């Protein structure tokens, strides 16, 4: 349902995405992982149209969407959950949810709240501003993504700012959405809980697709020092990796 063909994205003379080919199947749950700076988020942004590729093709539902705007991709059924969600002045959660769902009907908004597990009705009228905690803004981000009823949902580091006790319920929520609505789901994450939930793990390293398969198969590469980009000095002459 989503096909990346020989995809390139570069800044200056550096290839951030370096010739990726992959086909995402309908209704599957994908975990994209890899070291910091490997190109994971850039790949997700290319799919949403936030960045434009320098070469290659993105096909969604059989259509070449490589040059489509964010708006057109959203209307075609792609939804995106930002790692660092935007904050606004004068816009409430209700406003955003209504925009996402295409309705301001109170009953439908309440049904959406229940669907994403937000029990407090007063939360609906919270301003989406700088006063929200990291956890609250992430809940809003997830809810507005799910409210789109997307065919393809992309979540960029959904656990950023989320406490340890919330991660498993969040994984269950995304899995339930995948199962109940046949949503093709892509989660960019370092968190093992999301990678364990994935049907297929993709590992990106230096802009290339370094691995595709189950998590077990990815573990040796995840532990490989060659993809460690947070190194420490070991003795006078050697380096190790923080794990």
């Amino acid at each position, binding site marked *: 349902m989503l096909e990346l063909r020989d995809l390139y994205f570069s800044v200056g003379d550096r290839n951030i995405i370096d010739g990726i080919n992959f086909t995402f199947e309908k209704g599957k749950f994908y975990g994209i992982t890899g070291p910091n700076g490997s190109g994971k988020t850039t790949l997700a942004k290319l799919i*949403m149209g*936030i960045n434009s590729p320098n070469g290659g093709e993105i096909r969604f539902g059989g259509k070449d969407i490589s040059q489509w*705007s*964010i*708006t057109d991709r*959203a*209307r075609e059924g792609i*939804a*995106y959950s*930002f790692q*660092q*969600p*935007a*904050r*606004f*002045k*004068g*816009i409430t959660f209700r*406003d*955003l949810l209504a*925009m*996402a769902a*295409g309705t301001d009907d109170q009953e439908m908004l309440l049904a959406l709240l229940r669907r994403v597990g937000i029990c407090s009705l007063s939360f609906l009228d919270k301003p989406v501003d700088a006063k929200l905690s990291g956890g609250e803004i992430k809940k809003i981000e997830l809810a*507005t993504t799910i409210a*789109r009823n997307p065919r393809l949902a992309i979540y960029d580091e959904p656990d950023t700012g989320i406490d340890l006790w919330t991660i498993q319920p969040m994984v269950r929520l995304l899995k339930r959405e995948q199962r109940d609505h046949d949503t093709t789901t892509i989660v960019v994450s370092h968190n093992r809980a999301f990678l364990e939930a994935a049907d297929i793990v993709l590992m990106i390293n230096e802009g290339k697709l370094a691995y595709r398969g189950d998590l077990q198969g990815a573990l040796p590469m995840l532990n490989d020092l060659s993809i460690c980009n947070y190194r420490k000095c070991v003795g006078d002459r050697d380096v190790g990796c923080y794990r």
Partner: protein
Amino acid sequence: MLDAIDKELLAAVADLEGLPKGAFNIRKNGQLLKREVTANIDIESHADGQGITVTIKPGTVNESVHIPVILSQAGLYDVVYNNFIIGAASDVTIIAGCGIHCGGLAPEGHAGIHEFRIGPKAKVKYVEKHYARGPGRGRRSLNPTTKVFLDAGAEAEMELTQIGGVDEANRVNEAVLGPDSLLLITERVLTEGSQKAVSTNNITLEGAGSRANMISRSVIKGDSQQDFYATLDALAPCFGHIECDAIIMDSGRNETVPSLKARHPDAALTHEASIGKIASDQLMKLMSLGLTYDEAVNRIIQGFLK
């Protein structure tokens, strides 16, 4: 009595469909058009005809007074000096505003000087909107001055809005806060074309325990310019905050100068100011919800000025 233009201007500046309920004073082209008083709210004209005194009895609660001004006479510059005497422990809403309809080449304008004396423990909500329209090319100017004197424990919440069409605006807000009083000012101004708006605010925190919060939201489109100056002058243990944000679009220009003066060691004064274009992450978020670029810009501006 009210023609179609009058009704449109009243709807824009005072959310009125026709004549309001309760006390009101409607001024049209420099003359009194219609007035009503109530048992608790009295309105009297000044001897020179240039303004009114609104007196609210102590203990008056849940009442409102509308005092809109409408201008549709080419070449007229209307000046009024209005006094508001708010009795102790009252809780009232005052809706003011000026609407200009300009049909010709001659300029039209209005300067309203509003002076509030707010008694002990009284609460006032003051809503003022300025708006101009019409096919004429005459310059439309609105130069309001607001002076507020808050007695002990008094509270004033002021919403000051200029919603479009005004070529020149020179606003001055002055306030002196007594002990334990509270002042909240929210100013929202949108300029476009070659319009210019200046807002100068001087707030003196004179009484111990007084609190002031000044919020300014500016949207500057086209080649327009807005300047915002705000000074908090603290003479006692008090709290004051200025928050001023400006969104610049097209070739708009802005100067924002918040100023804090602590003349007492227990004064706590803060400010935050920002000038810039609409943040790209905000635009991308709304576009990812299916809005076009233009729809996203409008929605962000709408919220910002809400």
